[in-house]
């Protein structure tokens, strides 16, 4: 039993009808890394993320987070940002903060309030009155204000402008504990390449590459972005 392992997938398979969204995927991630989960649309990134969060039931295989199957115990240590808006639009930003504080022991109201202030988001606003980008920022603030062991961010910067992207990436780096692991799924590789320690390429529901960014740069002499373009060339 390796204490450093935060996430382990064994022969993980998810099938929809005759379509394999994930097929026999084996993966081990250690703590203290920022990992990019990269792959074209429909490659299985979101399916993998949903399985880790217990939002889907695997067809076969298993997911373990610190040797535990997805359960209330793992949800206490995993902070997840989905690729969609999951907050009730009728609620106010402040009510969402209270909601998170009520359910997650590791949520810091102070951190969240500070980030809202930095991004000039009024906590008294209702979510439905906010733009899509601002809603995404609020969700990210909620997720990053937790002191979790595993952060899973599905397309965290897809809907925000480039200026806000820089702030968000800085915010992610500032708020995550170095012992924690950050798994980021995105298409915007160049934007996040500099913060990544490791990349996972996923293709047709299978792991095509699991390598450290240093390995890619030193051994292959390429950036993650150019390797991605090469591997997933249409």
């Amino acid at each position, binding site marked *: 039993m390796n204490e450093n392992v935060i996430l382990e997938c064994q022969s993980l398979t998810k099938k929809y009808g005759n379509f394999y969204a994930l097929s026999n995927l084996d993966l081990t991630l250690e703590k203290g890394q920022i990992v990019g989960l990269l792959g074209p649309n429909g490659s299985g990134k979101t399916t993998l993320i949903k399985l880790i969060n217990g939002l889907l*039931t695997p067809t076969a295989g298993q997911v373990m987070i610190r040797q535990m199957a997805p359960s*209330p115990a793992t*949800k206490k240590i995993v902070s997840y940002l*989905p690729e969609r808006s*999951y*907050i009730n639009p009728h609620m106010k930003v402040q009510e969402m903060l209270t909601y998170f504080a*009520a359910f997650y022991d590791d949520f810091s109201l102070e951190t969240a309030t500070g980030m809202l202030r930095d991004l000039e988001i009024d906590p008294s606003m209702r979510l439905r009155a906010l733009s899509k980008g601002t809603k995404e920022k609020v969700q990210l603030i909620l997720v990053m204000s937790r002191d979790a062991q595993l952060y899973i961010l599905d397309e965290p910067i897809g809907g925000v402008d480039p200026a806000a992207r820089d702030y968000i990436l800085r915010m992610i780096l500032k708020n995550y504990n170095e012992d924690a692991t950050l798994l980021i799924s995105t298409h915007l590789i160049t934007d996040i390449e500099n913060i990544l320690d490791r990349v996972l390429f996923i293709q047709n529901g299978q792991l095509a590459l699991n390598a450290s960014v240093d390995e890619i740069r030193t051994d292959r002499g390429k950036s993650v972005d150019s390797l991605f373009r090469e591997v997933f060339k249409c």
Partner: protein
Amino acid sequence: MLKKLIKYDLKYGAKIFIVIHALLWIAAIFGRVFFLDRIDFDAPTEQLVSVLVLFFSAFVLLFSVVSLATALLIAARFYKNLFTDEGYLTWTLPASPVQQLWAKILSGCIWNILDLILLYSATYFMWISPNVQNAYRMIAAEFTASLGMPLSKFFLLMVLLSIIGVGSNVLMLYASISIGQLFPAHRLLLSVIVYFIFYMIIYALSMGALIIFKLLPGIALSANTVNEAASMSTYLTGTFLISLVLSAVMAVIQYVITHLILTRKLNLI
């Protein structure tokens, strides 16, 4: 955890619930003050009956709409909170599927019981109009004879029956929605179809039991020579007992179905 979940479940939709029931009570107050307190029960029968039929039809419709709105509120909360985008947050809270289910069951029952209390109290409020009470005194004996029991006992029986059925009603909604989720392409349509199938099963079983136990008034009358009042009383008590047993059995089945789907077949699309 369960307390927190219930608190947020009740918070959701509270405004809609309050508005709907406030409207119901305003209608009841207007109905009593401007109609029941003023109606002349000595007016010619034909005129009186047509006005009363109109009044009661309007209130039956209003009560049905309020009950339906409450059921929709409970169903919408369950569906939206567990199976739409909101589910991405609900299912990543540190709560087990069983806690989530019980929170929904208890909050649904609380909404439903509050709805019944407000409906029955509105009915009672209109019933105790002095004008109605005076008129009823004239036919009370006749009415009691035909019901086989005093109206107050009948009213209490109805209240009790409704409250006992609350858990079963809520679970029927939840089981239907959960089964509908197994068919991602037509989730809502399937949920509605399953709900009607459950409804038909309960109806068929109730009718079957009434026939088997010879409790239907017509059957009882033709089979026996007992008087009509006794038959009605037996019918009502029999229906009460059968509903009680059927509600309990169906509630257990529907709970098991919902529990299995939420714990083993959860697939947020």
